[in-house]
């Protein structure tokens, strides 16, 4: 009657609920957890989750435990009285695992950022996504955290979009943009440093060294503005255009210098051309005379007035003296800084409405260094300044150029006739607290493939075969069914210290569509809010700068499994109490000592009997 196949199935089923199976699972689970804590200690929380806690096999282990717990009870049906506690304990565990499963499947949590005076319903989750944005459309794809990411294909090539692969994942790191050698067809680029002209042990103080790089043709990297000087690079494909550009081109200043005095009150402005008018007295009428006492094109302000230092900066200035009835009013004016007026002497009222120095058109040019690349890839450098352009001259890596007008020099650190702006990743310790997660992403389409590093929270451009894409690696967001408006955020500190004692958000929470009544309340460190199945906690904050509005960070949690787990706890504790205080004893004593007729262990309390102490001699 017994079919061998059925027998095998039955025995397999019995084994599922056996103590042997239980031991195997208990030991396996304990070893897994120990491994998890060791991994966390060495490699950080995220790695431990990736390698152990969120893996399919760990989940499988837990499911097997639940199966074993259930079948163990089923195998012993119908239960005898002394087995009830064991069944209740097993049920409690099964419920707990079920609750955990519900939480992992349906529960989610995230952060809500709300600024004072504003409201938000956008929950920032902990899971992440990669957004690939093209000129017309964008695609978003989940970036899983529960599996090894290297070599994962996130998206197949579809209409208009390349395929997206993750080549590498770095738990904590930083991206740094730098110049690197490229391939034929790439534009030229160079890297430079700006140093004090007399070397690092210059006693003018610790001037910081500035480094930078340039990439021809790149709108963000072809020109760099260093405040006092602009540095740029330009590549030429046409030899003639190049020759034109490299030639010297002094600027003929169009116009002349002049001091202009405005008296207002219907008087026309008076112009004193320079340098012809230097030293001459001009009658302005009404007893007022003007005289340009000094004029300098590279003026430096000294104690007596201005002096011309021909090696110094281009800074045209003049000293104009206005005199009336023997009272002198001295104006020092600068053409580059028309708002900076120095007036000395004079009476109670100013003699003139305005005094200024006009410079010829083109004479206020900022200094610049232009790097030019000829069609064969040779590098040249050219200075630009107020007097126009010098002739370009060749320069190579290691070459040095003085910065016109300043006591600094630029050194070419590296030059690549074909260069690329590469994004490099710096890996940081995974169990530290610096850096962000990084992904190395590759896009592939008919034109080929290109790859780059993307940092969590940043957008990175990537060009592929003429099309340019924008990659963004970010936290996923999810709309909440209610809106939280922040009226006020407050931080309290322990008296006389910078340690926080409390922080609290005064909020108004209202449903987006039909729902419960809106709520006005305070969420603080020790006070949570339950609303529409969500629980809101005060998690952190960002203080507004310069007295601006603060931002509160609330942690929002939706966990349908928590109630199941709470129920499981109650069942489990009751079952354990029952187990400890009682009925299971007989079964265990019988199982442990089947041959013993009388149970040697007599745990029942016998207050009347004298204490039975076994002596050494007996």
């Amino acid at each position, binding site marked *: 009657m017994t079919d061998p196949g059925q027998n095998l199935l039955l025995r397999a089923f019995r084994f599922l609920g056996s*103590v042997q199976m*239980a*031991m195997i699972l*208990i*030991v396996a689970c*304990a070893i897994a*957890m120990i491994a*998890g*804590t*060791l991994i*966390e*200690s060495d490699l950080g*929380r995220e790695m*431990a*989750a990736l390698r152990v*806690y969120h893996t399919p096999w760990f989940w499988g282990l837990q499911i097997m435990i639940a199966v074993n717990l259930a079948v163990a009870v089923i195998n012993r049906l119908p239960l005898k009285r002394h087995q009830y506690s064991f069944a209740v304990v097993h049920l409690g565990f099964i419920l707990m695992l079920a609750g*955990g499963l519900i939480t992992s499947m349906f529960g989610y*949590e995230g952060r809500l950022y709300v600024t004072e005076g504003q409201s938000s319903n956008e929950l920032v989750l902990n899971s992440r996504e990669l957004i690939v944005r093209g000129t017309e459309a964008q695609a978003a794809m989940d970036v899983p955290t529960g599996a090894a990411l290297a070599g994962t294909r996130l998206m197949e090539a579809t209409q208009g979009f390349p395929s997206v692969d993750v080549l590498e994942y770095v738990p904590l790191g930083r991206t740094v943009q730098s110049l690197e050698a490229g391939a034929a067809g790439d534009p030229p680029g160079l890297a430079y440093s700006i140093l004090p002209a007399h070397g690092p042990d210059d006693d003018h103080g610790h001037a910081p060294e500035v480094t930078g790089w340039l990439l021809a043709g790149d709108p963000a990297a072809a020109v760099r503005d260093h405040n006092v000087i602009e540095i740029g690079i330009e590549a030429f494909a046409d030899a003639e255009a190049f020759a034109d550009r490299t030639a010297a081109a002094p600027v003929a200043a169009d116009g002349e210098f002049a001091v202009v005095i405005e008296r207002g009150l219907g008087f026309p402005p008076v112009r004193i051309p320079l340098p012809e008018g230097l030293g001459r007295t001009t009658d302005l009428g009404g007893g007022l005379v003007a005289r340009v006492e000094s004029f300098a094109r590279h003026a430096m302000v000294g104690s007596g007035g201005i002096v011309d230092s021909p090696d110094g900066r281009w800074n045209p200035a003049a000293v104009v003296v206005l005199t009336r009835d023997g009272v002198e009013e001295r104006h020092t004016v600068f053409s580059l800084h028309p708002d900076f007026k120095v007036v000395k002497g004079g009476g109670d009222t100013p003699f003139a409405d305005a005094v200024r120095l006009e410079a010829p058109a083109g004479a206020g040019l900022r200094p610049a260094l232009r790097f030019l690349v000829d069609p064969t890839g040779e590098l040249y450098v050219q200075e630009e300044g107020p007097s126009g352009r010098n002739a370009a001259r060749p320069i190579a890596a290691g070459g040095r150029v003085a910065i016109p007008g300043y006591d600094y020099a630029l050194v070419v650190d590296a030059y690549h006739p074909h260069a690329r702006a590469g994004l490099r990743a710096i890996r940081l310790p995974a*169990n530290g607290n610096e850096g962000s997660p990084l992904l190395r992403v590759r896009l592939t389409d008919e034109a080929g493939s290109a790859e780059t590093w993307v940092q969590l929270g940043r957008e990175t451009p990537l060009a592929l075969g003429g099309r340019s894409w924008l990659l963004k690696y970010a936290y996923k967001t999810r709309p909440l069914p209610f809106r939280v408006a922040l009226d006020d955020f407050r931080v309290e500190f*322990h*008296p*006389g210290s910078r*340690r*926080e*004692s*409390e922080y609290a958000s005064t909020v108004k929470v209202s449903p987006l569509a039909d729902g419960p009544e809106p709520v006005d309340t305070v969420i603080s*460190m*020790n006070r*949570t809010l339950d609303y529409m199945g969500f629980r809101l906690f005060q*998690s952190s904050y960002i203080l507004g700068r310069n007295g601006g509005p603060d931002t509160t960070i609330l942690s929002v*949690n939706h*966990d349908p499994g*928590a109630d199941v*787990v*709470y129920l499981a*706890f109650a069942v*489990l*504790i009751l079952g*354990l*109490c029952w*187990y*400890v205080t009682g009925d299971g004893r007989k079964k*265990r*004593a019988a*199982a*442990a*000592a089947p*041959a*013993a007729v009388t149970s*040697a*262990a007599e*745990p029942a*309390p016998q207050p009347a009997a004298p*204490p*039975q*102490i*076994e*002596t*050494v*001699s007996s």
Partner: protein
Amino acid sequence: MKHFLLLAALLLPAATLPAQDDAAAGYRPGAVPVELTKDWAILEGGRFKPLDSFARELLVQVSGRRSSELDGISALELMWGVVLDPDAFLSRPYVRIDNNDLKQQLGLNPSERRFPFTTLAASSELNRIAMAGFQKDEAGDTPTPVERDAMLVWNKLQRLDQLAAGKSLAIVPATEAGQPWLSPAALIGAPEGMPGQEVVAPWEKLKSAFQAADAAAFAEAAGELGPILRRLGGDSYPAASDLALEVRYNEWDLFGKASLLYLVGFLILLTIGRGKERLMYKVGLGVVGLGFLGHGAGIVMRWLIAGRAPVSDMFESLVFMGWGVIAIGIVLEQVYRKGFFGMAAGSLGFIALAAARWLPPTVMDSSIRPLMPVLRNTSWLSIHVMTIMLSYSAFALAMGIGHIVMFKQLFQPGRTNQLRTLSTLLYKTIQVGVLFLGAGIAFGAIWANESWGRYWGWDPKETWSAITFFVYLAVIHARYAGWIHNFGLAASSIASFMAVLFTYYGVNYVLGAGLHAYGRGTGGQIYVFSYLGAELLLVLAALWRYNLAVKTGRITPAVD
């Protein structure tokens, strides 16, 4: 800034130090009734405490002596000496240095343990080593043991220096509630009309009385100053009864006394069987019970003083675990009445309390400190910690019974009745432990969910408590399946306790990860491995004797 302070310290005493050796040598301890000041309140370390506690903590930190006196001078007197007569007191050897290499590098006698402030403060070498250590610390590197000790010594010197300079004796209440309190020396020379001025005159009297060893004048000045301080504080001044309670807590040293009572009780119970069994049994249990009362009273007092359940650090949880061991042991002893629970509980209670009370202060901090704000206002935390500690107590008790089995096997192999009895006791204790551990884990999960919305986060401490739970589950199931019998159960109870120790102590000090971390590898691995080795030896030796007994037929394993 650090350099500057110490430099100032270097200059000040050296500049004003005449030949004080005569005065120092001639100082008579107890010449001045400092006990009059022991219940004055001071605001320090984030809470109000009596000067008695402050003085004791100072003595512990500086001299490494957890007692109330040093070289015949009371802690309170030492404190007043540093404050009121620094020239005399700072040249006495009070500052403890532990590391012998450091002593050698500083040119000090390695067989001495304590050195004067003045000698050490003048040592630029000490300063250099300490600064090197601080820099390494800030950069995230690990200082060498010599540097670490130098840093500790530097901190001790800082503390004394600040006291001597009149900066840190904050006994004068602030004008507004919640503001830091002032030191009387800070009020000398303060502008007219500043509140607290009336403190200056009696303070000066106190000072000269102390320096002149004039008991009557000191008593008079103290009698003036005490009430002034209380009046200045108004409602914010701690109640006299609270301060008195803490002074009594310090003086009674209940944990130390309970520990000794447990030892005596254990020894008495050990002798059971040499005649007068019933009497010795009752006496032994009675002594343990007396210790238990004192122990409990100490916990209650600490609870009242700290204003929260005393389970917030290593010291408090260890004390509580000791209490749990005795409590559970007494209950189970009443149930089974074999004397074994009394012995196991007594010995373990003694060990736990002795460790808490007498381990060096660098390892065990017994001062009462306020809780981090994030942990306040939740009773779930206290419930969780207490339940977990009770489970550790039960498992410790089981381990104790296991040891009794091992020793009996070593010295009296073949006592089958006892083996079976002990085995039953053991099994019951483990069951109790599993119940409390399961409940404790559940309470912890509830607390975590209520506080930040996540009932389980795989934090190493959480995970290790689950591992411990699984370990004991494995023991229970192995026993149920008949794979281990009586001896096996006893050996398992000893081995499984390792999991408890790792969860309690290892996660913080060895793993160095997670929310509970104190830093990897700071855990005194030598002691841990010695302990493991000793336990292993014991089990192996007992196993060998057990196997001998089985071979010669005196024990039948399936039954026993």
